[in-house]
């Protein structure tokens, strides 16, 4: 188990190194510049060199790369080109809060409702329950979340006037974006859970449980759910990452000062260091989540636990 963990961590570090290198050189290939070239051209040659030197842009590419990597190892993502005098890490730190709040809420809401819908649909297979749950699921996948967000804003925000429409002031501001974000999750999880559940209900051990005289409700939560959830965990990774790191569209619509809107802004202005920092942050977050999920498998599925222990 320990060995497995170490190997995984080494793999993660290698992955991140490759991503950092790739984004660094790709960034440098991009046309355009983070600075207003017109204004820069008004400066004298000397002043301009001084300006470049301030951001380390006067050195050859290879040296810039070595410097960037050196700083990276020390946890320094560099200074933003756009937000003057601000570290990229500080920027991320300041912006992650709202995104993480929305993400955690949307994941919890989406998983809870999605799993419940899926289980109900499976147990009431081919009944009105099943059909209604699956209609919700199809709608959730097919309606783009910005359309749903706009509907929410109009009806709940404007007509009913019970929640703030598009500004970030208190906890109540997070409710509508959370709901808008979770719709997709509900839909995906409900469909997936239903299918897995139907599969599990066909298994012989469900009959064994019934033959023991276990009441139906207990059969569900003691025998069925755990087995049905094992595959559901697989799709947990990508969902968690995409939600926790902020949704570009939803954050824009609801005016959330999150990490998603920071990303959009930095791309607009060619803020190299911020883009690189965010890409790296996303990647690191993704690989770590996948690691946690793989470890989670072991907790839920004893067959995996044992083979891990042998390693």
């Amino acid at each position, binding site marked *: 188990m320990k060995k497995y963990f170490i190997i995984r961590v080494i793999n993660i570090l290698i992955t991140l190194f490759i991503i950092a290198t790739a984004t660094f050189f790709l960034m440098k290939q991009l046309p355009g510049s983070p600075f207003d070239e017109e204004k820069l051209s008004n400066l004298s040659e000397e002043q301009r060199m001084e300006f470049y030197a301030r951001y380390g842009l006067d050195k050859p590419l290879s040296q810039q790369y070595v410097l960037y990597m050196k700083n990276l190892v020390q946890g320094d993502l560099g200074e933003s080109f756009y937000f003057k005098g601000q570290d990229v890490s500080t920027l991320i730190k300041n912006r992650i809060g709202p995104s993480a709040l929305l993400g955690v809420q949307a994941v919890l809401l989406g998983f809870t409702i999605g799993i419940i819908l899926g289980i109900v649909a499976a147990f009431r297979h081919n009944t009105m329950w099943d059909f209604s749950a699956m209609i919700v699921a199809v709608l959730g996948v097919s309606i783009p979340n910005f359309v749903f967000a706009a509907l929410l804003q109009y009806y709940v925000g404007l007509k009913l006037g019970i929640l703030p429409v598009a500004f970030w002031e208190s906890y109540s501001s997070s409710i509508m974006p959370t709901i808008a974000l979770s719709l997709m999750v509900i839909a995906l999880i409900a469909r997936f859970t239903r299918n897995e559940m139907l599969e599990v209900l066909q298994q012989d*051990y469900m009959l*064994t449980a019934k*033959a*023991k005289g276990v009441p139906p409700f207990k059969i569900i939560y003691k025998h069925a759910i*755990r*087995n049905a959830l*094992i595959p559901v965990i697989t799709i947990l990774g990508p969902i968690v990452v995409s939600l926790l790191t902020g949704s570009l569209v939803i954050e824009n619509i609801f005016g959330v000062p999150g990490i998603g809107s920071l990303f959009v802004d930095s791309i607009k202005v060619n803020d190299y260091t911020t883009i690189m920092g965010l890409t790296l942050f996303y990647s690191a977050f993704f690989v770590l989540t996948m690691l946690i999920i793989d470890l989670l498998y072991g907790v839920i*599925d*004893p067959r995996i636990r044992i083979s891990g222990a042998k390693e």
Partner: protein
Amino acid sequence: MDVETLLKVNNLHVSFSTYAGKVQAVRGVNLYLKKGETLAIVGESGSGKSVTSKSIMRLLPSNSAQIEDGEILFEGRDLANLPEREMEKIRGSEISMIFQDPMTALNPTMTIGNQIIESLLIHQKLNKTQALQKAIELLKLVGIPNAETRVKQFPHQFSGGMRQRVVIAIALACNPKVLIADEPTTALDVTIQAQILDLMKDIQKKMGTSIIIITHDLGVVANIADRVAVMYAGKIVETGTVEEVFYNPQHPYTWGLLGSMPNMETKEDLIAIPGSPPDLINPPKGDPFAERNEFALKVDYLREPPMFKLTETHYAATWLLHGKAPKIERPLKLDKKRLTVTKPVQKDAIEITVPNEPLIEVKNLKKYFNIGKNELLRAVDNLTFDIYKGETLGLVGESGCGKSTTGRTLMKLYEATEGEVLFQKEAVHGKKNSSELKQFNRKVQMIFQDPYASLNPRKTVADIIAEGIDIHGLAKTKEDRRQRVYELLETVGLNRDHANRYPHEFSGGQRQRIGIARALAVEPEFIIADEPISALDVSIQAQVVNLMKKLQKERGLTYLFIAHDLSMIKHISDRVGVMYLGSMVELASSDDLYNEPLHPYTQALLSAVPVPDPMREKSRERIILEGDLPSPSNPPSGCRFRTRCPHAIETCAKMAPEWKEAKPNHWVACHIINS
């Protein structure tokens, strides 16, 4: 209902709604179960035997199955109409059930301890510590060593046989009055089957449980049952004590079932029942068996026969027992077969012809699989044998012994790790150009185990059969190709109309015939049949085996027949090789092997096979092998069988036994046998 009768089923009707219509799976079943007795329900797939047992437990899928009529009386209550809540109290405490496949019957994410105590917590209101204590006792009762540690383990840490013991422990947890076992040994190897049957008998003796066992295996019935009910097309056609049903069968279907079972002593053709069971969406009007019954009377097609009483316990539903029916002698073969059981007839010397021209020579063949982490799976380890032209060589052994790998390696589906295979004096393995390969492929064909998975569902039967003809360019014109397909279909007992249909339109037995036709299409010399009948019902098995024997005679084919069913392999093979854990332990003519097995493993294997003869079955001494098969990736040193061998000596651990000819044409690998 008298005091002795525990359970009584009256006029039970069960139907299933399907897209095609209502399937009348059980049509008026009557049966009873007395205290402490074992009732066997025998029948082929679709006969309604499992549905009957699940109805008693009310375990049928509630959305499609329905008990239409009848009552199931248990201790004065009618289970057919009991509310679900009340039924839950009976399940697992008064009546419990053992299922067929121990690999899937246990929840993979729960410790076996928790699975055993579940019913104790529900029904007996024990606290968890008491329940766990009881679980450990139960595991000991069903013969699981180190129960204290095993109770905390998960199902995947147990072997198949051990899991079935756990399933039995779960069923016994609350000391039920009735135990229903639905094909409890079908998924197990024969030596493990013997252990489990023994365990069930032992438990019945200790706890006085009444058992209903559902099975298709008449050997198992003869071994364990007190009474038998034979089911066909949703009805019980004959019922009586085992002795009555086995020694004085009255219904033609029972004759057919008994006749289609090979036993160890006969070489004659099996009595196959022609055709296949009726469609239960529109069940036939009269006797459902009439269509397949060579003795059918006119009345059989018109009116359903009632149960005719023969003795207090013996009943049969056939018009042949009516006073006005013509006297019909039971097929002679059947009686002869039974007679030979008690005194085996000496085989004529002529039958043992010593063939001398080897078609295939296998020398020190090894096939290892790399299973990662520097581990090797020694699937086949050092085999040496010949297959003679025109003979059938049977290869028998338990699952994981390497018999299928051997077959595939002979066919060059796998490349050999070491050693060589000569086919007509030419090496099979090693580099070959494509025309040599094609030539070889034409001469060697295979028949597969699963007739459902081995035929491409999107091709017509004609295209499936003719694929080989096309590849090898055996037909000049389209007309020629069609004629060949027709001929092949007729050869395997199908007809021309079948050529344009798709595989799903056929039954299992018919599909296996298509598989045989496909193999024959390229006019091969050698056919490897890998468990060709194990997925089929008994009566259909006999049809396929008879067909294979006939084809061999007509075309001079050579067979390698791989199976785990010892009686069937004895029936079809000229010589038999017994494999254990990747190596061959004994090879001899089938008569020699069965009459005088030399290797302790062969002896145990033979003694474990239940024979369809209750008297012999109940009187004979069994050699029950302890424990499970060791893992082929880490086999025991020296002789691989030594860990389970009752005669193991010191030398066995030190060196592998030599492959020697102990008697003329009788090869064996064992230290305690001298040549």
